[in-house]
């Protein structure tokens, strides 16, 4: 997977510790609802995908996803979930995500492909506990300012969303 050159850019050097630090920082921003700071981690061409539980491999242009956001749609999603009239997230869910099994799966020029497993617990008042389990797949652009998210893909382990109901927050 270590193509020596891609688009004329030499493959960046990267360690798992750097990627882990980034994931842990991102998880804290999301759990603390610091979504403006999270948005600053996105590349200008960022995408955010949650494929359907029953077709994890299907492409987003031909398969009905749960979430298929381009950069502008992510911006709109942040506006929406921060709005007190986003009823599904008001009062906001409390979430706690645990990230593990972090792996660098490839480097192409300045793009680092990385994967991790996650458990995200979500709590709302009076409601059942929601436990989202799955894996993250990232394409991260390594820049002088640090990593920027080019693609963020969430693969849910469950056969169906079922009792998890909605994905009304940033998973």
């Amino acid at each position, binding site marked *: 997977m270590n193509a020596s050159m891609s688009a004329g850019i030499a493959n960046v050097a990267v360690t798992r510790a750097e990627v882990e630090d980034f994931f842990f920082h991102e998880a804290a921003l999301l759990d603390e609802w610091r979504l403006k700071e999270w948005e600053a981690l996105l590349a200008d061409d960022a995408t955010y995908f949650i494929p359907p539980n029953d077709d994890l491999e299907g492409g987003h242009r031909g398969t009905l996803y749960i979430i298929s956001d381009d950069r502008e749609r992510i911006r709109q999603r942040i*506006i929406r979930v921060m709005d007190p009239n986003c009823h599904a997230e008001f009062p906001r869910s409390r979430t706690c995500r645990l990230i593990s099994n972090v792996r660098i799966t490839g480097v192409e020029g300045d793009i680092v492909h990385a994967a991790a497993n996650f458990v995200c617990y979500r709590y709302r008042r009076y409601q059942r506990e929601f436990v989202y389990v799955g894996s993250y797949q990232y394409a991260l652009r390594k820049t002088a300012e640090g990593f920027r998210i080019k693609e963020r893909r969430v693969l849910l382990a469950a056969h169906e969303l079922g009792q998890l109901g909605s*994905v009304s927050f940033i998973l």
Partner: protein
Amino acid sequence: MTGARSFVVDDREKGIFLLDREALVSDEVLRGEMRNIFAKCWIYVGHGSELKKNGDFHTRKVAGRPVIFARDGKGQVRCHLNTCRHRGALVCTERKGNTRRFNCVYHGWIYNNDGSMARVPGDEAYTAAFDKTTFGLKAPAKFESYRDFWFMNLDPDAVSLVDYLGAATEYIDLVVDQSPSNNMEVISGTQEYDVNANWKLMVENSVDDYHLPSTHSTWLNFMANSGVKMEPSKDPALVLPTHGLAIDLGNGHFTTDNVNFRGRPVAAWIPIYGEDAKPEMAAIREELVQRVGPERAKRICDTNRNLVIFPNLVINDGSSVTIRTFYPDGANKMQVTAWALGPVEESESARARRLDAFLTFYGPGGFATPDDVEALELVQQGLANYTDDRWSEMSRGMGREGEQLNSDEHHLRTFWRHWDKMMTGAQA
């Protein structure tokens, strides 16, 4: 079996309609619904396009019943009860696939994909009274289709599907007409999610346009932020930017029929689709005009419709086309399944636009559905007080003469009147 009490107060003289909230929380009511509604009505099973090749199958629950929706070796679409005739185990555990045979893992009984018995291991041990040819998989009493939408009915005395659908067929036709070859297909990717609310609240929510400004203000903001004109109507009677009707289609079916403002993949452009989409959307519209005429093309493109087929099928022909069905899993919970539907000949770019339009509003990660789910769950939580706050108010628009508005509650009353008749055993 019959004789349940009525749950509605329907005073047409005074213009008051009230629903006894026990209908939304009671396990006894749910048991009555399983007997008097889900075992009597035509219940949606699946779309023929999900079974492209002979031998294709999907397993799913239909009104709580595990079934196999399959195309047999000769191409016939079938619905088998997914229950072994021997001891009752599921005979197919895969979500979908292609097979000639369904094998029960317990004692190894094997069925052909047309449901007939293929093999009983060690059948010499049975007496002459055991006729294995009578041990094919059971099927619902009736299984019929309208334009490739397949429904089952557990009641052998039920009227035909077409008679049951009645005037609702026109609204299904408006969907199917969106394909140049009249072939719509279910797109890969299923949304299955639970809502902790009574299933009938989803029926109401699917057609209730009164809730749109309050429940979905963030969606309205998103549309406005994206350049879609969302000016409130000058007509004070209208809750939405445009005029829309609620129409009783008989047999408990009903629909909204709204002047479109939200864009439609076939074929009403809005800025969210991007400038690049304009030529292709114009071509889609032109094909439609040529094929069905300008008047019907306008009806298809410039109105949108949320159709309910009693009791639990919703076809939203709105920002995109969805098939949504749901069934009770207890009085306080439902399981929802939703699919996207599109013309089989749709280009790659048009398909992508359709799916994107779907996600602007619908589904568990959409910009609107999660707030619907929240609203329904809030209702269910609030209903815990039903013994001390007994009645839900559903009179909106009762004094209105003539055409009924989408933002009134005429269509909701249509549902509840039909539901009440079926539950009390009155002539439905």
